[in-house]
């Protein structure tokens, strides 16, 4: 069996076990409502996590995600409510800004050779600050176009709703999987994450790819921000605080190596769903402190990082044994 796939299988197994355990205790969790909610409620998280998967696969990190989501939400609210811009035009403007912002961060990371952690940390503060420059209030968005998008859903048997934003997340994941495994860009990312020096020597355009990775993460964060603003129909400067950490958790639980080069976009989807299941369980139980979500996610993270270290250790030892024999 391919040891690289092992973390992914472990994630799938944990997800299945967790869901079964939940259903045993609360049979109502086996409903299309819960399934629909898992997609709708985690749509913004999932979309941002796809971008984060690419960034981490390349050996980097993007801490600006949560702030970019809040920035997009506030920008949309200001543009639509105060300036009367049509939501579609506002969406386009927001995506252009966030993509450019991501590209600039990628540019600095590559050409100035600053660690991604520092650059995106600065980006996080910058974007959060920009929110407060625009407004400190929570601005409601009342627009027919918003109501239309929010009203777009397919009713599943049993009352569940397959919403527009839930479907959008699934679509983003499908495109992400195609990009990671069936495109040149995807193979470049894996190569850079595996070993940047050898990737350079192989003639891979590292500069262009690095900028593209962070631009993609910026774009997807912007898209997540649009979804978030559809989700709450409001723009609020303090929204989505710490979402970047939730996405990193989803990526790692999904079996992607934090050092880069190994991982699957599909695993991230399972990682997002696991977090959603834990939250749903806590709501169903109704007596547990909601901080248990963080505790369980923390424990899972530890377990997965340990699992990854063991796998890396085993594979290097096997390689050494093979080399000496």
């Amino acid at each position, binding site marked *: 069996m391919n040891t690289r796939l092992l973390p992914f299988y472990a994630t799938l197994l944990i997800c299945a076990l967790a869901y079964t355990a939940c259903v*045993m205790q609360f049979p109502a969790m086996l409903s299309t*409502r819960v399934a629909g909610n898992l997609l709708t409620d985690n749509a913004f998280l999932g979309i941002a996590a796809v971008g984060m998967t690419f960034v981490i696969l390349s050996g980097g990190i993007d801490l600006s995600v949560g702030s970019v989501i809040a920035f997009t939400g506030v920008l949309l609210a200001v543009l639509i409510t105060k300036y009367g811009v049509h939501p579609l035009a506002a969406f386009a403007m927001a995506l252009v800004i966030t993509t450019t912002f991501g590209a600039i961060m990628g540019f600095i990371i590559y050409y100035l050779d600053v660690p991604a952690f520092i650059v995106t940390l600065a980006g996080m503060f910058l974007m959060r600050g920009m929110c407060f420059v625009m407004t400190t209030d929570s601005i*409601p968005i009342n627009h027919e176009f918003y109501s239309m998008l929010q009203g777009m859903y397919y009713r599943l048997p049993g*009352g569940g709703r397959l919403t527009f934003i839930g479907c959008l997340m699934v679509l983003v994941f499908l495109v992400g999987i195609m990009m990671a495994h069936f495109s040149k860009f995807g193979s470049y990312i894996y190569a850079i994450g595996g070993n940047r020096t050898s990737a350079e020597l192989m003639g891979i355009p590292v500069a262009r790819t690095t900028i593209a990775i962070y631009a993609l993460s910026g774009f997807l964060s912007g898209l997540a921000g649009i979804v*978030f603003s559809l989700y*709450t129909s*409001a723009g*609020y400067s303090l929204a989505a605080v710490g979402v970047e950490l939730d996405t990193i958790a989803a990526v790692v639980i999904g079996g992607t190596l934090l050092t880069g080069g190994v991982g699957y976009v599909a695993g991230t989807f399972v990682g997002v769903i696991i977090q959603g299941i834990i939250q*749903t369980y806590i709501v169903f139980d*109704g007596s547990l402190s909601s901080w248990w979500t963080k505790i369980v996610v923390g424990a899972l993270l530890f377990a997965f990082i340990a699992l990854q270290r063991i796998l890396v250790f085993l594979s290097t030892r096997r390689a050494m044994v093979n080399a000496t024999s």
Partner: protein
Amino acid sequence: MSFMKRILLASTVAMSFAGAASASDLTVGFSQIGSESGWRAAETSVSKIEAKKRSIDLKIADAQQKQENQIKAIRGFVAQGVDAIFVAPVVATGWDTVLAEAKEAEIPVILLDRTIETANNDLYLTAVTSDTVHEGKVAGDWLVKTTAGKPCNVVELQGTVGSSPAINRKKGFEEGIASASNIKITRSQTGDFTRAKGKEVMEGFLKAENGGKNICALYAHNDDMAVGAIQAIKEAGLKPGKDILVVSIDAVPDIFKAMSEGEANATVELTPNMAGPAFDALKAYKDSGKAPPKWIQTESKLYTQADDPKKVYEEKKGLGY
């Protein structure tokens, strides 16, 4: 095969357990903001007590100050098929979609402690909140009655500038004393709702008013500032509660301690029991189908030294303030 059977068996057992657990008449989901203040924590524990009294199964989801968590919790409650949902909304906007889902599932929603901005008021059954203007008025009325026509100069410690409780509690107090020409507010400054700032500002008042000799009463927008100010009065060599009357709002345990020691005179309660009236309205609605009024005002009860503050302190201490 036998594994599958075992799972099936286990789930039927689990189902029958779930059936037994829902033997109480109602299941209510409560999406609470978090536990950012002592009052909020007390509200959560009082809600649990009130639910138990009525044998209602109350499920509480703590949102950690995040709206997205509250929306998720509400959706979760809808999926669970609870009988009603209580929400203490963290912000005023952005609730229309999720409340429409609850409405479609025919689950009534009751807002606690805060209201929301929405174009469609049918999305919630009723809102249970206190009237902060009325709180100020109760404090003012008490002072009018206590001074009984004797001239009285009042200093006022305001809450955070621009916050709605500060604006409303000031307005209400002024309404309360409007009829009494003997009472005048001579100084009014913000103490930011905190103990430290309350003390500091009171020290300034005392110095400016001839060592406190020209002050007859203190009105503080919350108890915490009053507790700080009491300290300042004592340090200035005066007796709080006698030389300077102290009246404030909120009714947190510490002010009852001060009252039992004779250092504070009165407080107006911002009750943490928002869930009790909500449960009653809900039961009436479920039994008779009659919708309650859109706004249920909680009682703003006045406590003075005559109300056995020591006993109230003991009662309130355990609520998590």
